[in-house]
């Protein structure tokens, strides 16, 4: 194998010109160590595997399962494991945290209280001696996905890059309130480093850098100590300014390498690969114990919960059990937010389950978050474009979006918007910019689809005109019509069905 080029990174990245300093509120939950959330009586395990589609249940109601047993598999290889031992009660459609109103099929398991692990789970002996493809296979089988929230299958991501120059391990948890990655690095730095080494092996990257924020000195120290012990020259640490959204994938890559991921492209296009620290730790955990991903760290925080802290919770644990493990509610009519306050989602209630994407649950006391405020006209103060990490002009995008001017939206490069909410945060006119851009993006993609259909239609009508000139035939042959075999097969199927129907009727 040829020596892969090494992308230099900046151990002290420059202070970003974009972004906002949001009150971090992280010490709320970092004053207490990580604790294990008690095993709940029932878990509700979502079969939704995010980008890998919806899994099909492999178990029947009434069946006994062991902790770590495979209970769901999607067509694209998404895997769902039992997060405790017990009995499968039923499969039902249940709201899950995600987009508002999202409903996904879930498996309901009742715990037998024993937490009996599946006997076939064995640690990976000598994982670094394993061929990378086999290691990735083990990672895929363990159901490990990006724990930063994207849920993209980790094994696929590790395999995707041909010429990788730098593996970035993202510990720059920039959203306020969330502290699960920070606490992981503080308390389990060895696990993180083991994971990084495994990921280096599995991806073929020559170097790795762990990005942490400047306001996490304890995590920096813990990782540095561990690095000294490990003495692996391929791994380094970079400290980025604690400014939201410095930990966004594309923004972090820009800060560390000075390169930008091209529009519509992926980090691998510029030789980078980004994984979350929690994902790295999950890989290390798999190698050490053979256990699949059935739990994750969740920050339970906010002024509406008695003892804010980080909890190690089984996937499918009801949020109510999580809040109870953090001392219970301590205010009237709290509001629940899944994720951070900048990009999170308001939840309808606490009966929803923890998913692999659940990094933080904010229990907000009344008045802790910003309430609805009257909107003033935009005064073009320009603060929004000053803080925009994508260098967009939000105020012009807003005008174009409100006017439904799709051409202008495309020209203003709306596709670069990462919906981070910085523009909303600073807007003195209190305009809901991010919400407007989410809607405008939908409109733009609709218009782009219509555009590509129009191109197709023009090509086909020109082909038809040419045919009329040459053969004077209004009916195209199937080759000329460029039909897909699927279309034809479907039509044939229906024709046959109807002929038969007619025959029956006669």
């Amino acid at each position, binding site marked *: 194998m040829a020596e892969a080029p090494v992308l230099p990174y900046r151990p002290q990245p420059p202070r970003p010109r974009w972004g906002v300093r949001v009150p971090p509120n992280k010490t709320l939950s970092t004053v207490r160590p990580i604790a294990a959330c008690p095993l709940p009586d029932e878990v509700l395990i979502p079969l939704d595997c995010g980008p890998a589609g919806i899994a099909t249940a492999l178990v029947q109601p009434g069946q006994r399962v062991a902790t770590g047993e495979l209970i769901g598999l999607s067509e694209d290889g998404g895997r769902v494991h039992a997060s405790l031992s017990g009995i499968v009660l039923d499969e039902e459609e249940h709201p899950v945290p995600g987009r508002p109103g999202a409903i996904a099929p879930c498996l309901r398991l009742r715990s037998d209280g024993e937490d009996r692990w599946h006997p076939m789970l064995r640690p990976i002996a000598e994982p670094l001696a394993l061929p990378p493809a086999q290691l990735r296979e083990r990672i895929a089988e363990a159901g490990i996905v990006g724990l930063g929230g994207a849920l993209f299958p980790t094994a696929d991501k590790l395999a995707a890059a041909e010429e990788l120059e730098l593996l970035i391990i993202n510990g720059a948890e920039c959203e306020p309130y969330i502290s699960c990655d920070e606490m992981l690095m503080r308390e389990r730095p060895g696990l993180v480093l083991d994971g990084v080494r495994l990921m280096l092996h599995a991806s073929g990257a020559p170097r790795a850098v762990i990005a942490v924020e400047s306001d996490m000195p304890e995590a920096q120290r813990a990782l540095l100590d561990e690095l000294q012990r490990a003495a692996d020259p391929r791994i380094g640490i970079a400290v980025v300014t604690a400014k939201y959204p410095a930990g966004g994938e594309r923004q972090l890559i820009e800060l560390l390498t000075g390169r930008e991921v091209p529009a519509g492209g992926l980090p691998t296009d510029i030789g980078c690969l980004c994984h979350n620290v929690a994902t790295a730790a999950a890989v290390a955990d798999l190698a050490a114990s053979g256990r699949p991903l059935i739990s994750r760290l969740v920050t339970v925080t906010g002024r509406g919960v008695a003892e804010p802290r980080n909890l190690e919770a089984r996937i499918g644990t009801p949020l109510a059990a999580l809040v109870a493990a953090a001392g219970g509610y301590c205010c009237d009519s709290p509001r629940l937010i899944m994720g951070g306050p900048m990009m999170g989602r308001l939840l309808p209630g606490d009966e929803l389950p923890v998913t692999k994407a659940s990094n933080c649950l904010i229990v907000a006391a009344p008045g802790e978050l910003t309430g609805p405020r009257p909107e003033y006209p935009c005064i073009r103060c320009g603060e929004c474009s000053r803080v925009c990490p994508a260098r967009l002009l939000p105020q012009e995008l807003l005008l174009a979006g409100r006017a439904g001017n799709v051409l202008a939206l495309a020209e203003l490069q709306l596709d670069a918007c990462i919906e981070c909410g910085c523009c909303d945060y600073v807007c003195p006119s209190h305009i809901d910019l991010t919400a407007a851009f989410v809607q405008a993006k939908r409109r733009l993609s609709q218009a782009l689809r219509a555009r590509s259909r129009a191109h*197709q239609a*023009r090509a086909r009508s020109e082909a038809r005109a040419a045919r009329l000139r040459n053969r004077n035939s209004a009916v195209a042959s199937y080759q000329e019509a460029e039909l897909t075999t699927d279309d034809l097969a479907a039509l044939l199927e229906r024709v046959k069905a109807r002929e038969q129907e007619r025959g029956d009727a006669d």
Partner: protein
Amino acid sequence: MLPAILLIAGLSGGIGLLLLAAAARLPTDRDGLAQRIDELLPQTQCAQCGYPGCRPYADAIAAGEAPINRCAPGGELLIRALAELLGRQPLPLDPACGEYHGERVAVIDEARCIGCRRCIEACPVDAIIGAHRHLHTVLQSLCTGCELCLPPCPVDCIDMQARPADG
């Protein structure tokens, strides 16, 4: 006073002559313009504008022979885009050219189709398939919603429906 009058008169006269000469001599980029207009048109090839297709209408607009408000499928958004491209005032859609319905597709009621092939012959983008005397169907991904297949159908088995959101 007199020099000023002479100067202004001379300047404006000279510039006017230059402009006249430029208009007469320099070739206007009608084809390029027509192409850019065609790029904006929805390519339904529906002929509701009174021209046989999108490109002929684009040529007519570029030549200054047609107003910009005759494309019903493009709707108000298209008129605004054309107005911006051409530096003209946006006009309301000409009601003589039909109404704006949003994106639609033709759907054949397969129970009633007799397989006469007339719709296939009428379709400007070859989006209808089926053999003579057998069931026909509209390929939704290719249909432009031009409605040209409606009049020839002898059994009125074709309906227009809103295009599904994910289509």
